[in-house]
């Protein structure tokens, strides 16, 4: 009897290490390890943000010791609240202004460039498509220095300040629009335009009635992403600013943190983050709404849109 039992159990005796190893490497098991790493990363990356948000409500000037909840850094403090401090309000204003102008200028130009680049076949088209990615991989500091030199040495009619900042933001934002819209264009293909032409639509009518509605989700998604990266930008805004009246929120936070950090700077960051989040979520929601039921189509854009979140 004991023999009959002993044989099968003998094969089941694993060391602890073997069990752990088997548990991790079991190809049929649930991907627990993967889930663990993923959640670990999410917590790690969100924790500092949550802490910053928490201390913007701290009832003290401390950014490290919790003294209870207040909204005075947002509204009631007569000197240092976001509501009452002119430099905070100015920075917020400047950031929103830059982001809005960036969206309004970069999106249409980017869409037109994407249309041109996607349709252009022949000598130079490959190079142009590749060069379009350059602003995405160029270190921002290099871009900032180059633009400053450009505006102070060559195009001296552009003064540093808001105009230079807008031009700088537009310069690197266009690439994002082009990449997203061009991806959507490729996934749409030529057949819808051909069908429109076949049914008697002139090229401009085909663009207006067929291509634009199909591109709309990508356009909205890219506008949201442009807004997010513009409002977030520090390096280019810093290089091209001309002092207090072109200070953006990231610049202000940087300066304030080096001098005397207050919960209100955390509050500013929270405000900016909330606005960005709302914009991107709204953009992606619009994208999803318009591409619903298209089944698989535009998944590349979906990735980019999702990436923006």
């Amino acid at each position, binding site marked *: 009897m004991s023999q009959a039992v002993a044989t099968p159990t003998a094969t089941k005796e694993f060391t602890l290490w073997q069990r752990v190893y088997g548990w991790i490497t079991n190809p049929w098991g649930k991907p627990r390890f993967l889930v663990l790493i993923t959640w670990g990363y999410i917590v790690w990356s969100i924790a500092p943000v949550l802490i910053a948000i928490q201390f913007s409500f701290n009832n003290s000037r401390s950014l490290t010791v919790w003294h209870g909840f207040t909204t005075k850094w947002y509204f009631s403090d007569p000197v240092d609240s976001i509501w009452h401090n002119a430099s905070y309000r100015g920075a917020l204003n400047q950031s929103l202004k830059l982001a809005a102008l960036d969206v309004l200028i970069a999106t249409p130009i980017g869409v037109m460039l994407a249309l041109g680049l996607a349709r252009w076949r022949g000598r130079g088209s490959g190079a142009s498509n590749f060069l379009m990615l350059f602003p995405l991989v160029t270190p921002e500091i290099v871009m900032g220095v180059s633009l400053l030199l450009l505006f102070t040495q060559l195009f001296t009619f552009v003064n540093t300040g808001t105009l230079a900042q807008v031009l700088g933001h537009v310069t690197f934002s266009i690439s994002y629009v082009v990449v997203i819209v061009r991806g959507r264009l490729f996934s749409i293909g030529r*057949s*819808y335009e*051909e*069908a429109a032409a*076949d*049914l*008697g*639509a002139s090229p401009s009518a085909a663009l207006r009635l067929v291509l634009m509605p*199909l591109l709309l989700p990508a356009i909205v998604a890219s506008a949201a992403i442009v807004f997010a990266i513009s409002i977030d930008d520090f390096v280019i805004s810093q290089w091209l600013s001309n002092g207090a009246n072109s200070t953006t929120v990231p610049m202000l936070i940087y300066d304030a943190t080096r001098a005397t950090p207050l919960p209100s700077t955390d509050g500013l960051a929270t405000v900016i983050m909330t606005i960005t989040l709302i914009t991107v979520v709204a953009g992606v929601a619009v994208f999803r709404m318009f591409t619903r039921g*298209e089944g698989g189509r535009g998944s590349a854009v979906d990735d980019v849109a999702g990436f923006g979140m």
Partner: protein
Amino acid sequence: MAGGEVKLIALVKQFGDVTAVDGIDLEMPGAEFFSMLGPSGCGKTTTLRMIAGFEQPTSGQILLDGEDMAFTPPHKRNVNTVFQSYALFPHLSVQDNVAFGLRRQKTPKNEIKQRVGEALELVQLTGLERRKPAQMSGGQQQRVALARALVLKPAVLLLDEPLGALDAKLRKALQIELKALQQQVGITFIYVTHDQEEALTMSDRIAVMSDGRVEQVGPPSEVYEEPSTTFVADFLGVSNLMRVVAHGDSDGRCRVTLGDFELHASRGETHTTGDTRIVIRPERVHLEPHESSGENRVPGIVERVVYLGNSNQIIVILANGDRVQALVQNTGEELTYKQGDPVRVYMPSEALRVLTDTGVAPIDEDALPPVGSVA
């Protein structure tokens, strides 16, 4: 709705160094169901796209009812296309998809409504006007694409493998429907396909294409029964092609020698002499007991028997080394021949056809024909 006569004259299309269409001359009279049949890359779709106006010919003419359309942009041509992918506008409802072309023509609103209704009735989609394309099955989308093109009452309807994405059963049903629809609306249909069965089923005439050229044009029975080139014989169903030496005509039949065996062929180019090919359809090949004798009989050994459902495909190696396929209807009786059996292959002279060898032969003579590709 008379007219719809299309004439292609010396049509050429080059993409860089590649010649997709290499000088095509075709005449498609009005109200005909005309198919362009050929393997992928034979230039059939490029030809269709040139008729539609999506591609500009490198040279040549496209006459629609006598008028050269080669340089008219697609939105100004009186032809409409049903795309392989359907290309239904995903953001528009069925109603708006079908009405798209009419709105471009500035048709009055009440007429649009009426004609869209009629078109949807024609393709049996009444009641689905509010649906979006994504909410419909493949077959239904196909019908919307048809309605969208037909509602404009074009002189010519171009169809680019419109049934390619559908499953076999639905495809068969739609083949018959399409043919009936063409007869009902009475306009020219130009149909592009690589499926020989589809072309044979629906067409009034077929142009078999290969390498950017037209190999043969004719009614289905003619291109199937009387292929004029080896390519056509091979592409329209499995054929037995054999290299022979022809000795010219004697009393209406061509005497040919296949290895050591003498055969008589009474169809095709019976006056040919010298090296050429003969062809016979598998369904015309008879298998007889080894002992039988008579004209046009060649001994052989059964190499393989393949069950195809409605028939059995029997591959025989002839005494001279050639392989011949015979198709035996499945009548429920047990097959008399098994692998390795000696048989005598009877190829009636009225089923043997002498071909002109155009050199466009996609046939690998030593390779077995693919199983199941029988017409």
